[in-house]
């Protein structure tokens, strides 16, 4: 009788310790996932900002200004435009 009780007591102690460790593990994993999600949000924010920056740099007025003033580009004379059609390439 006493022996069974002792065995059961031991078993219950093991279980209790198991619960404690698994709970601890669950919490640390949870914190890890929280941290990752936070990072995801940060990256999303950064992505949005970069996208905004990209579209601000890539606005047509700016492109035209650089093309005309810095690169000295201009629209070619219509007579100098050669249209390549599929028939020509054959």
């Amino acid at each position: 009788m006493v022996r069974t009780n002792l065995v059961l007591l031991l078993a219950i102690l093991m279980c209790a310790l198991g619960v404690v460790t698994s709970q601890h593990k669950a919490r640390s994993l949870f914190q890890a996932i929280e941290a990752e999600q936070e990072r995801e949000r940060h990256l999303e924010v950064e992505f949005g900002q970069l996208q905004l920056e990209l579209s601000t740099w890539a606005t047509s007025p700016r492109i035209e200004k650089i093309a005309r003033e810095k690169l000295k580009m201009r629209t070619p004379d219509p007579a100098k435009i050669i249209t390549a059609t599929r028939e020509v390439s054959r």
Partner: protein
Amino acid sequence: MMNFSGKRGHKFAESPVLKLRLPAWRSRLMALLILAGFGVLIGRSFYLQVLNEDFLQEKGESRYRRDLQITASRGRIADRHGDVLAVSTPMKSIWAVPADARLTPEQTRQLADLLDMDAKELSKRLASDKSFVFLRRQLPPEVGDKVASLKLPGIGQDREYRRYYPTGEMTAHLVGFTGVDDKGLEGVELAFQSQLLGHPGNRSVIKDRRGQIVEDVGSIKPPQDGKEIRLALDSKIQYLAYSQLKQAVTDFKAKAGSVVAVDAKTGEILALANWPTYNPNNRERLTGAQLRNRAITDTYEPGSVMKPFTAALALESGKVRFDTPIDCAPGRLTIGSATISDSHPHKVLSVAEVIQKSSNVGTAKIAAMLSPEQMWTMFDAVGIGRAPGLGFPGEVSGRLRPWKSWRPIEQATMSYGHGLSVSLMQLAHAYTVFAREGDLIPLTLTRADAGPVKTVPVFSQQTAREVRAMLEMAVQPGGTAPKARVPGYRVGGKTGTAYKIEGGQYVRKYVASFVGFAPISNPRLIVAVMIDEPSAGVHYGGDVAGPVFSRVMGGALRTLGVLPDAPLPVVAQNSQPTRGQL
């Protein structure tokens, strides 16, 4: 302890009190009172644990459980190629609970530096007796992080969004803008509000003493970000339209202007520009004139650009043919008490030449062959007097009076576009019948990815082709708009120079317009231009709006990669002159 033995020196069991003979009811009363006390306690605990259980549960939970809102962002607005026109980026707002915010002068100074505020102003706000004050809104997230790292008591922050419009004033009227709380106030932001709006989610969590989330409890409702709206707009064509319009309004000292470009194949609106405009990123000092989306919300008497419709109806009903002669001499026509005149008198013109040279008299004579009902039905069919149905805020339907009330002179003036009013968008829409094979295609603001849409036939294919030929003549030598020609492409279109009405009277102020399409061999693009009150000498549609049309159309066709369909003029100096025409 001492009392058990007592000072009097007898044992507790021998206490004289025990020897007193007390009445029995006293002990029974005590027992009863104690029982009643137990009863009350049991009742109370029953009340708390069973009947009113939620209250304590809630109190308990509130010690560790927190409901968190997960913010959702508003959808982006992009053009047809995915270039961003409007985007929300997260910002931080810094707030304080003044009662808790007891900062040292050093901390106040640090915070003021970060918030770019005056330290005195900041301490004044912190001393306010309100329970909650915003210190600064719409701060960049980095600043928010820095403030958080100071770990100041009573200072917190919220995430909020700010809407940015990278294309600024170029697309202001079409895209519109939002007010506080992500509410769309104008343009597409308003029209597509329900789709753009994100729905925040929420979750319940258990937080520990340090404020860290320990675990989730209950179910998580994930946030739903707003949908991205893909407009039909083409940023490059929009830029062309905008810059050319701006140039023309400045050059001709005009009051305002609009340009609309529509894909004739799909009914997609590729460009919509108005002048004057505004910067949606900075909306202090806005005037009504800047806000007006003239192309959609303003109507005007279109003038001669309506003539092709009259001619098309006459062709369709078999009253005239392409080359039927119409006597336009002597350049005046009296109907009732009113007289119609041409700015340049003509003699006998064919129907095609009436359109080419834009003769009011000729058009009125053609209209006289038609019944008011016929004309009304045709105008109605091409969308005059009906809103274009874009779902755009403030869309107007224009004015087309019921045909029963038309007097003969009115029928005559309506045939050349006076006495009815339209918006520029409606004009561009109506011209789809000529650019297509006589059928009207509904316009759309968003990318038409769903495949072909249902079109409404108005004219026969034959009529549409003949009108196209007439409109091509109008931009050739002898027509009203040689300046609207586009090198390399065959284009067609019609000018309009209409008097404005002020106080019910026609005044010497004009609206110059041009609506046309290209390439004629297989029209792809419709461009409509309207310049309001040009006042630098010239005011004819062909001179003012024609060049704008030409440049926008030319650039847009190149952008779209449409093959040139006109033989190029051979330049003598060019070493390889004929290659382009192979």
